[in-house]
């Protein structure tokens, strides 16, 4: 039971497909105009991922090495078609909102990546939970980004008016440039929080008080840490070593 739970947590937090692995950018940018769309896309992708993971993990022993890519493609494409038809029949407004991005789940890097990296090598149970974890992680990320964009771009979350009436929606957030901008800010935030983590151990770390980041040092910063700014202007010109 523990390893299943671990897969779940891994997919949502440690290896979140959007925030950490940076896969599946196309649907992220395209459908996060509103939080509702985000949930729709996230759950559809999750269903496809779970089903594909399960099937491929079950049949992994019977796939010859050379034809595994077309094999994966066909399985995933079939699952996507099934989901598409189900959405068309039972959840028509979700189908209309997501439009062309439903068939494009086939070429979503997340699905392909997980299938190749995990389902092809592990048992059905663990792959199933890996699919659930990744799918949920994807959905959570989409909902977060979608809510953010919807809130600032239309003043609503899940179509419920949240911002006060006087709020002038910043409509660029629900349009393509806004999508790029929100993702840029999110990745920058990520980088900021990851900055405190150490790099690999064999690299020497600076022992100096200034931090040793000379590339971003300025004359004033240098002078405040090291009291050795050469002042003499009549220093003899040395011959520089030429090539």
């Amino acid at each position, binding site marked *: 039971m523990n390893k299943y739970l671990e897969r779940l947590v891994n997919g949502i937090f440690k290896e979140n497909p959007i925030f950490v692995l940076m896969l599946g950018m196309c649907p992220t940018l395209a459908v996060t105009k509103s939080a509702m769309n985000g949930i729709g896309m996230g759950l559809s992708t999750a269903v496809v991922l779970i089903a594909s993971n399960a099937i491929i993990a079950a049949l992994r022993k019977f796939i010859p090495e050379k034809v595994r890519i077309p094999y994966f493609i066909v399985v995933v494409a079939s699952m996507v078609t099934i989901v598409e038809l189900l959405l068309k029949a039972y959840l028509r407004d979700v189908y209309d909102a997501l439009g062309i991005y439903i068939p494009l789940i086939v070429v979503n890097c997340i699905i392909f990546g997980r299938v190749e990296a995990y389902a092809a090598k592990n048992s059905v149970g663990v792959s199933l939970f890996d699919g659930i974890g990744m799918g949920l992680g994807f959905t959570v990320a989409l909902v977060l980004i979608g809510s953010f964009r919807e809130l600032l771009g239309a003043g609503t979350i899940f179509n419920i008016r949240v911002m006060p009436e006087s709020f002038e929606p910043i409509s660029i957030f629900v349009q393509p440039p806004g999508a790029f901008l929100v993702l840029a800010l999110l990745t920058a935030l990520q980088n900021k929080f990851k900055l405190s983590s150490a790099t690999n151990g064999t690299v020497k770390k600076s022992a100096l008080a200034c931090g040793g980041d000379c590339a971003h040092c300025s004359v004033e910063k240098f002078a405040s840490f090291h009291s050795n*700014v050469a002042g003499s202007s009549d220093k003899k010109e040395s011959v520089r070593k030429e090539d």
Partner: protein
Amino acid sequence: MLTINLIASDFTAVYSAVLASVNFNDIAVATGVVSILGLVIGLFLGLASRKLEIVVDEKEAKIRELLPGANCGGCGYAGCDACAKAIAEGAASANACPVASHEVHMEIAKVIGGSVEATEKKVAFVNCTGTCDKSKINSAYYGPKDCKLAAGIGGNGSKGCSYGCMGFGSCVKVCAFDAIHIVDGIAVVDREKCTSCGMCVAECPLNLIELVPYRAKTMVACSSHDKGKDVKTVCTIGCIGCKLCEKACEYDAVHVNDNLAKIDYDKCTNCGACVKACPVKVIRQQSA
């Protein structure tokens, strides 16, 4: 008994309802189309791969397998593919790859039929230790943070010493093995990761990096040819050319030419006498 009968009849009712609604004709057509398409594609690609097969030199393929595959360019060829081709054709010797270990060289030599003598493992070393707390700056530099560009501009970045490492990291960018980094304003080589491919040596515009034998532990970490008192105005740890090391060495391995000490690694025994003799502590002894 009655409940089981009821369940059974319910089941058959549902089953026949489902059967009636399913149009087997459609399923057959769909399956047929997809299967035929799959067959056509499979046959097409299979035939195409037969017709468009390229004859690959067996030896070249084996050699390519043995090469490390980092495509660093240290051999002088355009990547590992080109190097494998050259070795297979005889244009390059079996130990053309500086990154591969001696065992790999022997394997490659076996493929082409021959042998290769052992070459000594080398690592890169940056001949400058003027970190920002030891060396002085004499200008505020606002240009592009690239060593080659800064070298073209003149003034050696913001460093006072015109021979010293500027620390903008052009060498870091070309290293394919993550073996060189800028620490405290100068480039430092990670001896364990360095494969002596030589890319950083070629890249440094001030020619500060040289390949030294791995077994060498004593290095003069300075490249300045300035006279002693000029060195002292710009750096507290630069070589002043005092020749105390040359006098201390019993093996005639250190010589001071043009105000700079240099160690002859063929003669050096790592005894450390010069390290003790040096007044500015510019001769370093590596610990491992």
